């Protein structure tokens, strides 16, 4: 599964990326992560997510799901091994290149990370503003998406006035509004009811149909079973591919 580059060359792009068109969106090659001198929290992870794929990331609490997502979002750097995103090795990315790469990734954080001084509309519009789009150009899209996640009547509400479930939906809307090439979500349905969870899953599936690669970390076994999508299972920092959920 892994395609290890010649260490002596250390090119910026993965071998065979061929202009990045055929490269996997995410590639982990014997990746490990430790904090300081503590034991590794992620051990020897090797996997790829092909463009347009849809995976769930499952595992018990503390298994390393959130840490793995942070590595994909380049919020953390591995202490060993190599990670490639869209065909580019992350250790070769300069600080100037990182924002453009992150704008291709939609991230639903476990703690949501909403901006309390912005209303729902402005929170969702944030990625579009950062991408340089004008308010007049995205207002309709943002309003439509907010309506779709059930917050159409709360566009001017501030996060602190929303329930946990509403905040969760707001965070999801912010992550998907820019139609990212890669969507990673950390427990996106943890605070919503079953019907809303199904609705959110449909949104992710729809995005996936449009070409977005999706990776969702979840504890919701029913949701995983309902989707029929492949599963990456992580336990004690090690990746295990269930035989019945191979990509």
């Amino acid at each position: 599964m892994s395609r290890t580059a010649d260490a002596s060359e250390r090119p910026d792009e993965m071998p065979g990326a061929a202009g990045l068109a055929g490269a996997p969106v995410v590639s982990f090659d014997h990746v490990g992560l430790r904090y300081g001198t503590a034991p590794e929290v992620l051990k020897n992870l090797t996997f790829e997510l092909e463009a347009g794929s849809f995976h769930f990331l499952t595992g018990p609490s503390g298994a390393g799901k959130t840490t793995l997502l942070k590595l994909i979002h380049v919020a953390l750097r591995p202490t060993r091994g190599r990670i490639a995103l869209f065909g580019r090795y992350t250790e070769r990315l300069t600080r100037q290149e990182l924002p453009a790469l992150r704008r291709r990734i939609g991230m639903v954080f476990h703690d949501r990370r909403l901006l309390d001084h912005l209303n729902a509309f402005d929170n969702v519009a944030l990625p579009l503003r950062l991408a340089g789009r004008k308010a007049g150009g995205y207002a309709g899209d943002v309003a439509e998406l907010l309506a779709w996640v059930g917050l159409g009547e709360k566009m001017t509400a501030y996060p602190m006035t929303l329930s946990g479930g509403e905040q969760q939906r707001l965070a999801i809307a912010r992550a998907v509004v820019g139609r990212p090439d890669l969507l990673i979500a950390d427990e996106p349905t943890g605070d919503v009811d079953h019907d809303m969870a199904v609705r959110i899953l449909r949104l992710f599936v729809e995005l996936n149909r449009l070409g977005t690669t999706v990776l969702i970390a979840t504890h919701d076994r029913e949701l995983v079973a309902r989707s029929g999508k492949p599963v990456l299972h992580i336990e004690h920092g090690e990746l295990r591919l269930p035989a019945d959920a191979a990509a």
Partner: protein
Amino acid sequence: MSGPRTAPSQRPAALLPAEDARDGALVFIVAVLCFLACLSVVAALAADRAAHGWRTELRGSATVVVRPGPDETADAAAARAAEALAAVSGVDEVEALEKDKAEQLLEPWIGRDALPEDLAIPRLVDVELNPERPATAAALDAALKAARVDATVDDHTMWLKDILRAAFLAQVAAVAIAALVAVAAGAVIAFATRAGLQARGDLVSVLHLAGAEDGYIAGLFQMRFARLAATAGLAGAGGAALVTALARLAGGGEGLTPVLPVAWSDLLPLLACPIVAGAIAAIAARLTALSLVRSMT
């Protein structure tokens, strides 16, 4: 579940929230600094004006001290000196001061009726020079020697040098104070930027993770502090303009004091204060924010 799909009509909210209490204190401090800087600039202009006036006054005249010989009276010696000096090119007018006038000049130091009648007081000849082509002290001296008059020419060169040096030092001091105040304002803004960034680490983190570039985040702080400093600069310049105007009005035609004459035109440079304050704040905030943002995730 679906609601109205009309987007809010208001402009996008500022990504950097206002810090009301902290902003008020910052505006006050920068306004005071701008006020002091503006007064320094006015003082520098006034010192320049005063120096120019003194220079013109002193360069336009010379004083000749005539010592009468044993065979002639002081009046005769002064008259001969005046005659010789009047013929020199670059001299507009010559006046030999009468004995009474010479005594009047000594009166502030010696007092009235304190001089013995038989004391030989040197006579003074006041020479008014042509402002375009003034005669040199050497030319005046040569004319006096040619006329065999024992006299000393004082073209005020020694005084002029001291006065110009004093005026120059006053200007340098005023400009240095203005520069120091500008640096202090920059340091205050840098400190405020650092505090603002550290207080808003959560926001910086979210913006980073959402794909904002370092320059974009630094730009948010740069614009905010530039606006604050420009507002403070306006207030500081307004205060300084008020003080300058009062000084001008209180002192009549020569300003508050002839030593530092203030003119209405001195108010014009104060108009630049908000722009300069904004620019200094923008640079200080950007440099500080960039260095700090780069150290954040």
